[in-house]
């Protein structure tokens, strides 16, 4: 076992760490847009699955990956419009609505996958996204290969983390945004449109989580597999808690996840003498440990508290 571990090539391990972390990062950063405004992002799983299918179907029928991305974004917005209406609008229980949307996502994707692509022997594929090497930078030893040979979604993800950090920590709007999450009543008194911010947060979550799904189906692979989100959304939700509801914390958590996943895949590929199923279990067990360690975490104090709006008081 140890020998197998020692023989892994570090550069390729780190490369796959980043590649596997990207969908987690997209989902977790997306989720943070609603979590920091006080709305639980427990619906991530459903959005990822819908996004993966919409991207695949869009790319397949149009022949363009960018149309695929656009379809994913639209699907994510549509699904999270339901979530925003129910959770932000009517104060329905977030886990309940999220579970409903997950079942809906499974039902929709399974049904339309079979209706549109059938279950033939020949697997329907699209041409997947290609990596773009950044001139000069990708020649840097080790880091060049690990960081600067991503596909376009990969680069977008890195920028997104920076942008979110800047938005939340350095802008006035970001301060208002966090105030909505910490204390919706006080924010409302200060004239901040609490419910509008929250709804926008949920829609942003929809966009980025759907892109995470798109990454799974048209960037990291070129096919759609039923239930291909494989609980990544719930893992991202746990990572947000672990990362104490900050972009930096979420990024670290996701990289840790990507690393564990990469290690697991490497071990599988090298034929480690552990049954396959136990290696596949690792991410789930990892999430359980994360949740045990972080418990409820330090969440914004207004998190999960329904705000009915001024006219209702």
């Amino acid at each position, binding site marked *: 076992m140890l020998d197998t571990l020692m023989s892994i090539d570090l550069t390729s391990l780190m490369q796959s760490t980043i590649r596997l972390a990207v969908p987690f990062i997209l989902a977790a950063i997306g989720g943070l847009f609603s979590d920091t405004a006080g709305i639980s992002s427990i619906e991530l799983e459903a959005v990822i699955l819908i996004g993966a299918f919409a991207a695949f179907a869009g790319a397949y029928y149009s022949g363009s990956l960018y149309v695929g991305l656009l379809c994913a974004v639209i699907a994510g917005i549509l699904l999270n419009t339901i979530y925003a209406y129910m959770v932000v609008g009517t104060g329905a229980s977030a886990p309940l609505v999220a579970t*409903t949307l997950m079942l*809906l996502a499974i039902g929709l994707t399974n049904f339309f996958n079979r209706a549109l692509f059938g279950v033939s022997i020949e697997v329907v594929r699209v041409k997947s996204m290609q990596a773009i090497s950044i001139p000069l930078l990708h020649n840097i030893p080790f880091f060049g290969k690990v960081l600067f040979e991503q596909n376009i979604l990969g680069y977008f993800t890195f920028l997104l983390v920076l942008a979110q950090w800047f938005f939340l920590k350095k802008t006035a709007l970001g301060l208002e945004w966090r105030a909505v999450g910490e204390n919706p009543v006080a924010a409302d008194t200060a004239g901040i449109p609490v419910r509008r911010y929250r709804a926008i947060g949920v829609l942003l979550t929809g966009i980025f989580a759907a892109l995470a799904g798109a990454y799974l189906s048209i960037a990291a692979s070129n096919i759609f597999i039923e239930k291909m989100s494989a609980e990544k959304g719930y893992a991202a*939700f746990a990572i947000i808690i672990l990362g104490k509801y900050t972009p930096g914390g979420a990024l670290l958590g996701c990289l840790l996840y990507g690393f564990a996943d990469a290690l697991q895949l490497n071990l599988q590929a090298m034929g480690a003498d552990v049954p396959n199923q*136990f290696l596949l279990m690792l991410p*789930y067990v990892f999430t359980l440990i994360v949740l045990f360690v972080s418990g409820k975490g330090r969440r914004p104090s207004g998190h999960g508290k329904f705000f009915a709006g001024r006219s209702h008081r």
Partner: protein
Amino acid sequence: MRQSYRFIELTIKIAMPIMAIISAFLLCGLMLAAAGYDTLEAYKAIWMGAFGSKTSIALMLNKSAPFILLGVGVAIAFRGSSFNIGAEGQFFAGALGCALSEGILRNFNLPPWLLITLILFSSLVFGGVYGAIPGYLKAKRGSSEVVTSIMLSSVMILFVGYMVNGPIQEPNKLYSETQEIVEAARLPYIWEGTRLHAGILFAIVFALIIYFILEKTTFGYKIKAAGQNRLAAEYGGINPNFITVSTFIISGALSGLAGGIEVLGVSWKLYLSISPGYGYNAIAVALLAQLNPLVIILSGLLFGALNAGCNQMSRMIGVPAALSALLQALVLLFVIAYMPLQSKIEKRLMRESL
């Protein structure tokens, strides 16, 4: 005045789920048409598949049994304000317990009733123990039970996958399944000429038991009190953590029992596809029945019919059987979409009747 208020309240309670079902069928019909199928033909095929003949009715009832048991399990956890969406994993834990105990007990030549009781009891215990984990994590650490229970679900499904490919694989090592259970361990058929097994009776009896516990015992009262207002219940001397863990154990035990019944009654061996996602759709079963165990018998029958009907439909006219998952999800979506409407009407009635 009071009388008429109660009458209207009851009418709304009955009307809402029916509206949800009708809305789901309408929307699903549109999607079917959009995907290029003949909606009416598909719905007719579902109906025939569920109620068309003696055989299909028996099949439908067999499918309903796990839905009822899992639905009641989800409901009791819900009443205690826990959200058990990992029933699928507890179902497999129970099925695994069933396969393991059958493997040990098969050589003892026990009378069938004793053998079946012992095996189902071990399913109950396996499911209960596995259900206790998310309950414990929630009570002790405040970890979201939604995430922990779904993660544990995935872990159990992978573990069963390992078991049926390794330690308890059938002797020829060809298929990913256990060897067939002995004849004495099979659930008896209860309807001449069909494959209707005793599972549906178990399901109904357990729904009645849980109804009795919830409505007629102190424990049930405590569950409901802790579910409605945790702080007030604690002030009144109820330990909410105890309620969380114990309702999760009961929920897991019922799911485990369903897994055992599925193996002893339908598949006669353990493999991964014995569940078409019972555990997930059980949430819809429970909520459609507004968490009332007696009504869950009805909603469980509806979901059993949808599942059995869609399987038949898929065979007859080629519409994907995944339609049942879509229909069930839409039913749940409309149930929770109509919830605010229902409470609005109820509140208004309350004001007017005062």
